[in-house]
């Protein structure tokens, strides 16, 4: 019993920590600090996944944890740091919405996911249901980061934090197959699509990664 409640508390704390860090992302107004917060997010995810691997006695999840740690907490933030530096865009992030409304919206989303998930999973085991509720919160907050930022780099960071929420949900669902494959697929996706192609192309054409520069042009009005 003691062991069970400890394992419950630890995973609860880690998942709750992810939600908290997602909130911290909402009010970062500089790219460097946003990247640092994201690295922290990935680190906590790695810890959480490793804890799930230990509790569920599922060694393959350690692979997912290692991917989260090495790839998302170290390689991607460092690479994005360099890109931001090279492009000289480490000035303020231009948010589409102010911090106040964003935080309020974030709280509403977390409340929504708690009410929704805790209500529908009443029959599931408590560890999984709390995990799922937190995971949905992280997903929705990641979505919020994506829609409130106009800069391509911060949109990608939002997407990655959203994906962290999905990994949290997948590892929380005990015995779910293909978790490792999915996390590998996501990492490849991020590595190739985002950094390799889009940023390269966007920079090549406009010397800017500000997506609003793209918004000026619409096929309808040419």
């Amino acid at each position: 019993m003691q062991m069970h409640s400890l394992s419950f508390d630890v995973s609860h704390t880690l998942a709750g920590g992810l939600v908290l860090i997602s909130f911290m992302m909402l009010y970062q107004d500089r790219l460097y600090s946003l990247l640092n917060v994201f690295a922290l997010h990935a680190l906590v995810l790695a810890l959480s996944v490793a804890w799930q691997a230990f509790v569920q006695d599922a060694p393959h999840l350690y692979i997912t944890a290692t991917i989260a740690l090495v790839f998302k907490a170290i390689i991607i933030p460092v690479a994005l740091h360099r890109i931001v530096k090279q492009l000289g865009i480490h000035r303020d992030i231009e948010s589409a919405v102010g911090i106040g409304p964003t935080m309020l919206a974030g709280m509403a989303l977390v409340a929504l996911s708690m009410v929704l998930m805790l209500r529908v999973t009443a029959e599931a085991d408590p560890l999984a249901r709390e995990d799922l509720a937190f995971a949905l919160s992280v997903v929705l907050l990641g979505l919020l980061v994506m829609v409130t930022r106009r800069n391509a780099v911060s949109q990608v960071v939002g997407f990655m934090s959203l994906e962290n929420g999905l990994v949290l949900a997948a590892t929380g669902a005990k015995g779910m197959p293909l978790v490792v494959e999915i996390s590998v697929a996501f990492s490849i996706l991020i590595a190739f699509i985002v950094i390799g192609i889009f940023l390269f192309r966007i920079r090549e054409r406009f010397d800017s990664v500000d997506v609003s520069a793209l918004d000026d042009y619409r096929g309808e009005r040419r």
Partner: protein
Amino acid sequence: MNVLSFDPVAAVLIIPIGSAALLAILPGYRLTARLNVVASLATFLSSLSLFVIARPPPGPYVLVDDLNIVFIVLNTFVGFTTSIFSASYIAHELETGRLTPVYLRFYHAMYQTMMFGMNLAFVSNNIGLMWVAVEIATLTTVLMVGIYRSHAALEAAWKYFILGSVGIAFALFGTILVYMAARPVVGEGQDGMIWTLLIRHAANFDPALLNVAFIFLLLGYGTKVGLAPLHAWLPDAHAEGPTPISAVLSGLLLNVALYALLRFKILLAANPAAIAPGPLMVTMGLVSLVFAAFMLYRRRDIKRLFAYSSIEHMGIIVFAFGMGGPLANFAGLLHMVMHSLTKSAIFYAVGHISQIKGTQRISGIRGLTVTHPALGWCLVTGVVAIAGVPPLGIFMSEFLVVSSTFARQPLLAIVLVFGLLLAFGALTLRLTSVAFGEPRGSTKSAEASYVPMFAHLSLVLIAGIYLPAPLVTWFQHVARLLG
């Protein structure tokens, strides 16, 4: 298993992915374009052999049943005809310098990878694998939409990528929830994701969890289907990418997402305590139809026009499947096939036309039937078909949708007919200005490939006049499967 025995399921997967690897390393435009056509033909022929060769029993990853054979054959057929069109289209793009040989190699490899992703999504029996396959297909199209690297193409690809990722995320979350619902009943691990096992035990799943899962799946895969209000990526992606990609996007990729949605709809329908998926799909379908019909009037770009028309038709199809019942499902299935054939034929014509005229603006294209009779009349036939004029195939499927709805929900049918007439008006308006009147723009002769267009349009015409009895029986059977 005998090494020499022919396995059609493996063939429809291995041929595309193998040729993708080959196309990525081979140089030379003529060779790769031909190889692309040959590979697509081989895939199509192997998919046809699914009809004759005994099907493999449903395994942990692969499932072949009466439902997905329809999708696979349609998919590989349109993939094959598009590869023929693509060969002549891309030759012109190389001449004008819009594409460089390196990008062309990339383009062909991506084309086959996309075919692989779509076929994998259709044959997968594992909902996790299906999700991965849909994502492969989507991401390759993102890359191809951005291939011209122009301002507009990049914006379109970025928008597609961002909205597509949101769809990805929601669909995966929904898939995880389905697994959570299945776990207590089916058991942990692999089994909880195998569709044939899920459907057998669906009645005992926790209905509340299944409901939430379906909402996420509807939003996630619905983004890919292009349902309003999640359609924002679709017109841009269609307008800015190469036209062969517009043709496969409209004709095939939307169907892949629709197929995923249908699988989960069947799952939900098997649980009596869960919400009925029908009304949600009916609402989204009708909203898409009416919204897209209004949007058709304001389009200035010819590819965008037909992109909105795709939203409209996906709306009709989702509406029909949402209504459910043997007749509406039959109509939905038929409409899906007819729409794929007609819309890709239209895009073939539009692709050649916009290359000749050097513009996609509707105001820059006039009098096509005078200057380019073959292309012009193909476009006229295609648009007349898509607008739902008898005796072509789309008229018949739309008629079935409308009449089955009138019999059950007259009020919904009125909205449906309103949307259809609205779209009809917009399309005729644009068609008359593009096809008839004083010719405008370049009148140089077309080096078009007419075979794919003629093949699609004659199939649509034949289907409108006479549907062979075995096909009808098959579709009726599938319609009953869909519930």
